[in-house]
């Protein structure tokens, strides 16, 4: 799973969001590091929908323009949780090693 995909899925954990809200929330979650370009975001959303990891929750018309709200599917929630657990396990390996070295120093 790429970093961008991870953050897109993570932004939807709290509930459905539209494109701009996903971009803003991904920026917040990553501490300003993951700034998704709009074209990349919608391409990524299309691919995630094709993989059944997200789906359109509902659509609104705002100022005459359509706005889709996306939500995680069960598979999508499972995928992002699995990825988070994998990273946690990987991080623990390094942090434990660092902690041992710090304690013996």
């Amino acid at each position, binding site marked *: *799973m*790429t*970093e961008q995909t*991870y*953050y897109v899925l993570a932004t939807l954990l709290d509930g459905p969001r*539209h*494109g*701009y809200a996903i*971009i803003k929330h991904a920026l917040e*979650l*990553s*501490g300003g*590091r993951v700034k998704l*370009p*709009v*074209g*990349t*975001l*919608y*391409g990524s959303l299309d691919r995630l929908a094709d993989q059944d990891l997200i789906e359109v929750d509902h659509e609104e018309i*705002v*100022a*005459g*323009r*359509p*706005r*889709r709200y996306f939500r995680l599917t069960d598979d999508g929630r499972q995928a992002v949780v699995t*990825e988070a657990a994998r*990273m946690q396990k*990987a991080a623990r390996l390094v942090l434990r090693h660092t902690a041992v070295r710090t304690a013996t120093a």
Partner: protein
Amino acid sequence: MSEVLARRYGRLVRMYPRAYRTTHGDEIVDTLMAVARPGQRRPDVRETVALAVEATKLRAAGIVSGGPVWWLDGLHMATFLLALGALATAVGQTWFQGHYVVWPVLLAAVVVALLIGRPWLALPFALVAVFAVSRLHLRKVWPSLDELPPFSPQPATRAELAPWLTLLVGVIALGVLSRRGKLRRRSWWWLAVPVAAFAARQASIAWPASPGWVAAVAIGQIALLSLALGWTVITRDARWAPAAVVFFAPDAVWLRYNRWTDPSPLGLTYWGIVGVLTLAIVVAAAWPRRRRRPAQTTS
């Protein structure tokens, strides 16, 4: 909200395929406007690049879906381009008059048959063409060929036959391999190449072997290879890898045969660029589709 910026983003969104644009174009522009800086009037470069990349991916998906398998389509492209190059060279010559006019007509038949994806239709014309250019070599075993008037170029060395033999093998391979599925119909816009060659000849701007012609062919090939590399990198559409390799294989034979007898700096530069671009296309096509990059979390 800047109307000017919205209009400019609207123009950029036209890069997307029409069907996608109709459904999602307004939503994309709306989001682009939401992320724009206050007072911004020009599209952001990063956003523009992202739009171009995604639009290219969507267009590639549209082109590839329903088409033949990538390596077959690549072979088709290479064979078609070999025939197209031969036709452009033929119509660019001034000496195809009288019965020699048969030659460009023969090549045009091969080009059109391959353009519409009918290799078996191209085969008889390709066979006659290869027979014609091999005349000097065939008459050693078949002396009575001298009684037939020549109507094509007469390559003196066997290495010069390499593109023609590649074309013939390509046509036969396409015919055999495409039995279970149809080949793609190529764009008629490709015929602009021989038309431009004919126009250049008529206007006495360039003709085969003239410096202008050689430069135009070299620049055209490098531009096409560069576009193919960009396309392959963005879309991971592997079709251009076999196309580039098969297209330049006869030239490699020619170079090998001539043992680099013309190592001019310009020639070496050209072959260097062609070689690097072709290799880069092959590498890009073979590169794993999605590089794994673990996500980072902020503390």
